């Protein structure tokens, strides 16, 4: 039987080199602040790299969705390095392929296309969040 959860952890790649990394982070903020506030939380990815006890506990006790900016998949690999399997793993390019009119540009400040891409990505991830919380997805 699947287990129900109170919250889901969304982890973005911490990319500071490419617009897709910025979209990953913005998507997480959209989830935590607008789409599912209180149900989706995040933590700093380098805390997992450091094996910080609180961060480790957070990703151990709750289902994790990773959102990566590039195929190097830092967010996913950093979670897996702790021996934890992500419940869902995405790359920003997946969302961009579905919304090619929303081309992200900029790194610190995303353009309108990048912000909209993050918003629609977060909207699409809402279903995953709801299913994970309801225990409808085996994590």
């Amino acid at each position, binding site marked *: 039987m699947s287990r129900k959860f109170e919250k889901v952890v969304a982890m*973005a790649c*911490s990319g500071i*080199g490419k617009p897709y990394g910025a979209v990953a982070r913005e998507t997480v*903020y959209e989830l935590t602040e607008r789409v599912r506030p209180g149900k989706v939380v995040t933590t700093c*990815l380098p805390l997992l790299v450091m094996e910080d006890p609180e961060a480790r506990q957070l990703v151990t006790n709750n289902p994790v969705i990773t959102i990566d900016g590039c195929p190097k*998949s*830092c967010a996913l*690999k*950093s979670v897996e390095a702790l021996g934890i399997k992500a419940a869902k793993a995405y790359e920003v390019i997946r969302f961009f392929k579905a919304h090619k009119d929303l081309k992200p540009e900029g790194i*610190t400040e995303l353009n309108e296309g990048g912000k909209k891409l993050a918003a629609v990505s977060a909207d699409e991830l809402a279903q995953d969040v709801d299913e994970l919380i309801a225990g409808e997805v085996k994590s």
Partner: protein
Amino acid sequence: MKPINIQVMKVGIVSCSGEELPEGTISRFACRKVLDDLRQTDTVTICLPLFIAGGQEERDFAKTYPTITVDGCEKRCAQISTERLSAKPKKSLVISEILQRHGIKPPANLRNLTTDENTAVRVVAEELAKAVDEVLEG
């Protein structure tokens, strides 16, 4: 004609990503300002988790470049991870300490920075640029 061997020294910047903390945003923005504007030709960067996710080339980053780490908080993820997974940084900056020294109040936003927070970005970027110069001067 003999080839001229010109070695161009660059400083590696490693920013904490700090998704959970406003100081993390200040760190990323200040690092990008140095990389893109203040010391564009003198600096390179790497995403911190690439030390785990990448290969040997990424792990050698701090061995290849003299490195400055910039951390948002006292946990010093960038400094410790760089030290542990690559090599000891030449300098390590912490945002909260810089802001305190300049009498700037701690930031409150993760995105959509206020005028005061943009001032904090500028101040941190200027300190980082100065640190880059010091590393280059040896």
